[in-house]
């Protein structure tokens, strides 16, 4: 029950944080002088296309861009009635992309869940690789196993992701017949979900997961190794050995449990790092994730689109931190009991 209450409390603070973030995001997307429409109007005027100007002016009124900034924020959030009543983030209307001339939700629709999918795969990859390797490197510290793991890890850290992507595409295609680019074979795009499509997506996921996850995995592995080594020197490890435990079981039960905390606490940091870190990779790999969309939207000052993408990334981060906080409380009695009356 304690944990449920904590989770609810944590969810509440997350919503509050999200509200704060929305203010920040709105400020940021309004920082550059002008907006997409005023830029466009100026351009149209300069080239004498008065007809277009009328449409742009109409859009300006339609999206309340002629109102003061604070009103714009509340209308965007859907907390104040705009020209069409309450219609903003809160109501699920994410605005209009001026660049693509389509609603934001339509543009990001598919890439949203593809982003989540790619990043989840990458996070999973990071944990699945870093956990055993980190433990192994610590248990066999200062042996060839440790050095080899460290070498590969540093190689992963040091290689630029896009370069790794190109190399993997080349060799993956040549020797394993892996597809190049994209997140599914072109014929499935826009098609409804089917087994074939799922298969195609999974095969396409292999290289991106590897590319995006490698550096995170090597960093995580090194961190886990260092934590484990710290723990291995603690007296309770000696106690466990003196009980007559087998080394492998002892490692799993005691030091790993303690070294696990930072590991879990990292979930929150991993997500945004991957989303922003994978922009370039997504461009190179031609992934239909949200990264390239964000890049494009920021470049052309397509404010509602970039605002939505930034909010989405923030949401991912906050959910990640919330998950890791709740997990930590579950895992570590010391944290759990601190918030309890004694």
């Amino acid at each position: 029950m304690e944990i449920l209450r904590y989770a609810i409390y944590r969810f509440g603070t997350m919503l509050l944080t999200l509200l704060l973030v929305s203010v920040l995001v709105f400020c940021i997307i309004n920082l550059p002088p002008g907006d997409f429409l005023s830029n466009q109007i100026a351009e149209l005027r300069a080239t004498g296309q008065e007809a277009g100007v009328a449409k742009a002016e109409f859009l300006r009124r339609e999206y309340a861009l002629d109102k003061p900034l604070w009103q714009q924020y509340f209308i965007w959030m859907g907390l104040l009635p705009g020209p069409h009543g309450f219609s903003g983030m809160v109501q699920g209307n994410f605005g209009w992309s001026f660049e693509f001339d389509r609603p934001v939700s339509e543009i990001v629709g598919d890439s949203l869940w593809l982003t989540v999918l790619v990043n989840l795969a990458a996070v999973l990859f990071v944990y699945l690789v870093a956990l055993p390797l980190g433990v192994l490197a610590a248990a066999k510290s200062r042996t060839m196993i440790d050095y080899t793991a460290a070498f590969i890890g540093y190689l992963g850290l040091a290689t630029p992701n896009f370069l790794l992507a190109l190399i993997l595409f080349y060799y993956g295609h040549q020797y394993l017949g892996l597809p190049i680019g994209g997140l599914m074979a072109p014929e499935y795009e826009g098609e409804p979900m089917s087994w074939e499509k799922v298969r195609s997506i999974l095969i396409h996921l292999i290289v991106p997961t590897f590319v995006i996850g490698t550096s995170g995995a090597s960093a995580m592995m090194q961190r886990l190794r260092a934590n484990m080594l710290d723990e291995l020197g603690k007296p309770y490890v000696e106690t466990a050995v003196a009980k007559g435990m087998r080394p492998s079981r002892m490692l799993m039960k005691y030091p790993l449990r303690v070294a696990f905390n930072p590991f879990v606490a990292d979930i929150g940091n991993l997500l945004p790092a991957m989303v922003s870190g994978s922009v370039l990779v997504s461009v190179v790999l031609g992934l239909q994730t949200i990264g390239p969309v964000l890049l494009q939207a920021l470049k052309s000052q397509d404010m509602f689109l970039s605002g939505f993408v930034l909010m989405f990334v923030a949401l991912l981060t906050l959910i990640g931190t919330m998950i890791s906080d709740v997990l930590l409380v579950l895992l570590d009695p010391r944290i759990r009991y601190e918030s309890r009356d004694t």
Partner: protein
Amino acid sequence: MRPLLSVEDLSIGFGKDNPVVRNVSFSVAAGETLAIVGESGSGKTISCRAILRILPRAARLDCGRMILAGNGADGDLDLAQISERQMRHVRGNRIAMIFQEPMRSLSPLHRIGNQVSEVLHLHGRCSEAEARQQVLDCFERVGFPDPERTWRSYPFELSGGMRQRAMIAMAMVAKPELLIADEPTTALDVTTQAQVLGLMKELQQETGMAMILVTHDLGVVANMAEQVVVMHKGRVMEAGAAEPILRAPAHPYTQDLFHAAPKIPQEPAARRETGTEGPDKDLILELKHVTKTFTLRSGKSWSKPTLVRACEEVDLELPRGTTLAIVGESGSGKTTAARIALGAETVDPGGEILFRASPGADPLRVHDMDRAARRAFQRQAQMVFQDPYSSLSPRQRILDTLSEPLEIHGTGSRADHRDRAAEMLGLVGLPTDMLTRFPHAFSGGQRQRLSIARALMLDPKLLVCDEPTSALDVSVQEQILSLLEEIRDARQLSYLFISHDLAVVARIADEVAVMRRGMIVEQAPPEVLFHDPKHPYTKALIAAQPVPDVDRPINLKLVAQGAGAPENWPEAFRFAGQDAPPLVPLDPGHKVRCHV
């Protein structure tokens, strides 16, 4: 009788260096206690860990045999030779071990019950339900009032003494034939130590197991052991039955150890003439009605914070040129009192701390200083810390460490600093050519000399010593105490001396205040306090102190009563809750907290 374990010709080395343990032999029989005594670096810990082969990875067993006598089914085992698999069957099952630091020897993330019952599961002794019952019985046996609750507890919910009891339960639950205890009570308060030692002895008598007790404390040896091995620098100096060795040590090293061991004197020592008698005392420091309340905030912002009284109505007077000692166990508030005396902690309204730099000077109100006054005060009052290993910066040369206080206070040139530093090194008995070295080149005792030298750099009038010898070996402890005494008398210093160790205090103090849970329970000069203690808590502290004399065993009854709850104290001292009686002078200079 054939010994249960006999270690013959054991040598242990690290890498290519010379062995750190050389040709050590000892043996222990069932039902018997063998004490391995030595100072730090004597190889006592590593020898006993070698028995279970839990050595650092770099260590190697050079030679030697460790024969564990067979029990029925198994034949004799040479622990130095058997496979890791066989060894695991011995560990925790036939030979169990208790470690020094109960705070850190239990996993912080697993419940006590889980950690203890694991021993039984590992050695496949019994079913889940049986194991649980056995563990609960064991908890009850080692003195947990509510075994079920202990089963569910995490280590951080227990006090140090209770954690060590949990460790003992963990070691005992599989009913081992041999228990190795590595300084099992060193990290505990004296009264707790006495109770834990008593418990270990009882358990041994019940089960008939053998015990190897590693310790630096001859007092513990006298209370516990039948056999003794004295080790020094990896070699056995003297070995044999405990009683004759304790009565008449033959080897010069053992004699030195005995000589250095601080004792509570049995005969009242002649009182040091302090020249502080008379009505108009020259007090350098005065604490009046000092109360300190800490607010513990719970994690929830909406629940009420808990108030903890670290000091309650503490009145102390320190006459110039003398030593006032505050004695108490952990949590008694003695360190808080010292910090308050130095102005490092605020006091609750109403408390006053007055400091007079010179006789007849206007008192400085330490509890209410402005910046300038604080700077001036810091030059007059300095502190010597407990742990010489962490109180000196490892990245600073000695010269820099010593001259830093002068730089902070902006006095003198660099050459002056150097001269002063050299002078102080000489004063604390270190050669002056050590100025350019780093702390790691010094031993613990030398480091403590260095921190004394640093404290003296500004030529203070008052020195607050917070357990200055408790991290040191006994022989070094003795030297540091002598040094402190010499310096006090030569420079007319005054000490506020904080300690948990009555024997140390008996030697250096002119006046002793015993604190318990923030309150002074008894205060008197040492010769009065130690020979005519009135308060049950003081009596418990004195009774709990292990003395290296086989004829003066620890009186567990006195310990249990005095260290227990105030409700169970004798009528004159008894109180409940916050309702403590006042501190009243029974005789001139002897104050006791009791109902008159």
